[in-house]
């Protein structure tokens, strides 16, 4: 049966929401703005659910729909050999991504209604949020690289708009710019990859590239490695891996729901999605896969170490996002794409939950974000506490929460990937321990102990809350904010129960078969053994955090003093930002000041005006002297002109220059 899936409506409904809110929102009442803004993602979610239902009841994958206006197939680009259409395709991978995007997105929209209710620019926020949903849907629905790139760039744009939402705050505006510029660097890699793909395969459509690859089994390495590495650069930019992760911590300047949606659940996963989508290319290039795995493992460990000593609650979560994305990259790097996507899904649940709960804490404390000024919130914000606990347990990989299943699948597949896989597994394991430690540190500092919120003079840290929000005493959040927390907590608990095997089988037609523990040496018991090791490491992290932070003591302070060098290194994020500033930003600024100032304005603009003026004046001077009034010079010029005329007349009449070949002059009389 062929049903119409209305794939094009899935992005277009949020776009309509963006247009309505963007153009008219300023004048509309807040309730109407919220309704429009919520209706769009909800409708998109319903469409996705319908699509899932249609698949379950018999329609087959993949569903490809070309966006046609009326009866005319909307060709987008038809220039010589390049042929690109507005084609959307729904397969298993896209369906999973769409469910996450629209589902979690919708929950975050609901949350934002409560969180942003006191903000100015309410309409603007929801317009941008809908815009983001539009672009993200286009990204995952696209059937060719170019359309995906549209979504890719678009989510970068939406993220810039949303990070810099409080644009009158310099740090927020700078953070938005930083995110966009760093993403741009990644996009450059993506573009190079597209160009190489076009040169190699002559097409940008996933379907035709897949067929071409399948038809050439001998094509390995070489150009495919180059393509894959270029795409990896793009993915690093979008998914905040080394070396392009620097934008994500600063992106916490945006409102907290934005961090939840964009920088936890959806946008940053675009890189992982892209690698999974183009896995056919990566499979042919072991080198590229190794690069991905190493980047992923290194980033996971690196970000985890920085997260250990951060004091801002959102920064901890930002670094943990980078670290978890490292896990996904790690999974892709060992060709376990299903495991990576599985972790992507569970991560979407618990990271969104963590961010939203952090937002709830911040909202409850009227803008405080520094964990050193929190504490003892367990009794005051109970629902927030319990939901956040679910999230912390999930991210630490404690059985039976969602994170356990996905992280465990990642690590198992890494271990089974050969000798280098075992090294990667070990790095992942250490990072898991660190993750558990700093997440529980966050948990303890925020919710346990005595409340430090009222003892400190709250330097109201208005990073993600504008100053309009007047200080209340600590209060629980409204139900519009708590309901999504509860739903996400339930998903974090049960989201992994589908199990890697079923999930992998579901995705196998798209991303390749999943490693089956039964067929590996050691069988299923080895799988269980590794799981136990992972849980033990996580529990160890919890225990250490408990020692340090459960009750107020100075163990943490003493350790920090004892390893002050390491501590300062971590607290300053390894001074990477300063390093980049020194190596890249300052020379670039110097060069552009030089070019723009000296060359651009000086030479070109002032120089050309000087030149034009000079030419005119010089010509005027010369010509002025010609009109001397002196009769003899006029006579001389007349004679010269006459000489020239006679020369040319002679040539014209006799046909040769100065009679070189003899001239015969005579006249024929007519009628003779």
């Amino acid at each position, binding site marked *: 049966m062929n049903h119409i899936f209305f794939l094009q409506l899935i992005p277009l409904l949020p776009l309509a929401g963006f247009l309505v809110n963007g153009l008219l929102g300023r004048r509309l009442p807040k309730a109407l703005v919220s309704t429009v803004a919520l209706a769009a993602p909800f409708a998109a979610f319903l469409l996705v659910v319908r699509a899932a239902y249609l698949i379950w009841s018999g329609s087959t994958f993949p569903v490809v729909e070309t966006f046609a206006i009326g009866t005319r197939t909307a060709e987008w680009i038809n220039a010589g050999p390049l042929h690109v259409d507005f084609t959307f395709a729904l397969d298993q991978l896209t369906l999973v991504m769409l469910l996450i995007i629209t589902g979690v997105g919708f929950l975050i929209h609901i949350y934002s209604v409560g969180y942003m209710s006191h903000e100015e620019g309410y309409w603007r926020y929801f317009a941008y949020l809908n815009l983001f949903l539009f672009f993200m849907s286009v990204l995952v629905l696209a059937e060719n690289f170019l359309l995906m790139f549209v979504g890719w760039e678009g989510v970068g744009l939406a993220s810039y708009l949303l990070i810099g939402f409080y644009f009158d705050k310099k740090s927020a505006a700078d953070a938005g710019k930083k995110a966009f510029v760093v993403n741009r660097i990644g996009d450059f890699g993506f573009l190079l990859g597209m160009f190489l793909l076009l040169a190699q395969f002559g097409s940008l459509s996933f379907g035709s590239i897949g067929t071409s690859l399948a038809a050439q089994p001998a094509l390995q390495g070489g150009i495919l490695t180059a393509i894959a590495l270029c795409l990896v650069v793009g993915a690093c930019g979008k998914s905040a891996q080394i070396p392009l992760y620097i934008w994500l911590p600063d992106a916490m300047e945006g409102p907290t729901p934005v961090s939840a949606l964009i920088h936890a659940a959806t946008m940053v996963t675009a890189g992982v999605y892209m690698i999974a989508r183009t896995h056919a290319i990566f499979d042919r290039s072991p080198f590229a896969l190794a690069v991905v795995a190493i980047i992923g493992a290194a980033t996971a460990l690196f970000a985890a170490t920085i997260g250990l000593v951060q004091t801002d609650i959102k920064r901890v979560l930002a670094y943990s996002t980078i670290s978890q994305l490292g896990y996904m990259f790690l999974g892709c790097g060992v060709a376990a794409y299903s495991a990576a996507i599985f972790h992507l899904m569970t991560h979407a649940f618990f990271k969104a939950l963590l961010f939203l709960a952090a937002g709830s804490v911040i909202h409850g404390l009227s803008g405080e974000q520094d964990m050193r000024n929190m504490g003892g919130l367990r009794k005051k914000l109970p629902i927030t506490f319990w939901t956040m606990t679910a999230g912390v347990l999930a991210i630490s990989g404690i059985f039976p929460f969602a994170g356990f299943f996905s992280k465990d699948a990642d690590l198992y597949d890494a271990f089974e990937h050969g000798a280098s896989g075992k090294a990667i597994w070990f790095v992942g394991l250490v990072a898991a321990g660190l993750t558990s430690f700093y997440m529980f540190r966050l948990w303890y500092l925020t919710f346990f102990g005595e409340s430090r919120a009222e003892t400190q003079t709250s330097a109201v840290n208005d990073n993600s809350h504008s100053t309009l929000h007047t200080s209340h005493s600590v209060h629980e959040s409204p139900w519009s904010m708590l309901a999504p927390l509860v739903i996400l907590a339930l998903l974090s608990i049960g989201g992994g129960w589908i199990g890697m095997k079923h999930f992998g089988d579901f995705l196998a037609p798209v991303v390749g078969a999943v490693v089956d523990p039964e067929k590996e040496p050691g069988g299923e018991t080895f799988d269980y053994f590794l799981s136990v090791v992972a849980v033990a490491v996580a529990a160890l992290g919890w225990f250490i955090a408990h020692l340090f932070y459960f009750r107020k003591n100075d163990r943490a302070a003493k350790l920090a003093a004892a390893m002050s060098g390491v501590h300062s290194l971590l607290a300053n994020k390894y001074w990477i930002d300063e390093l980049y500033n020194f190596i890249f930003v300052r020379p670039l600024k110097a060069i552009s000041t030089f070019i723009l100032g000296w060359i651009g304005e000086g030479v070109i603009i002032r120089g050309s005006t000087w030149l034009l003026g000079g030419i005119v004046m010089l010509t005027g001077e010369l010509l002025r002297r010609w009109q001397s009034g002196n*009769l003899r010079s006029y006579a001389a010029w007349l004679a010269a002109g006459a000489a020239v005329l006679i020369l040319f007349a002679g040539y014209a009449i006799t046909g040769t220059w100065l009679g070189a070949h003899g001239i015969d002059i005579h006249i024929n*009389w007519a009628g003779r």
Partner: protein
Amino acid sequence: MHVPSSWYLILSALLFTLGVVGFLIKRNLITVFMSIELMLNAVNLSFVTFGHMWRATGQAAIDHRIAERGQIFVFFVMMVAAAEAAVGLAVIIAIFRARGTLNVDQIDLMKL
């Protein structure tokens, strides 16, 4: 005895060139004017020469009358030159009255 026509034409060219040179180097306005008259005469000579060269014979002579036409052209040139000389000399007199000099180099403002 015959004289090649080209000699007449060469003479005409020489006279014309001498007229041009005179126009360039003489400083008295009247002398410059006389050089112009010399140029005109040179051209007249060449007209007559060509007219004579290409005169036809027999019936065609009466049909086309080339020699006559050459000479009539010279006739008209002479008329115009006479008129021009009259007016030009009147102008020179007016200039002399205004400027007090007939030196070409000192008459360099186009106003009287």
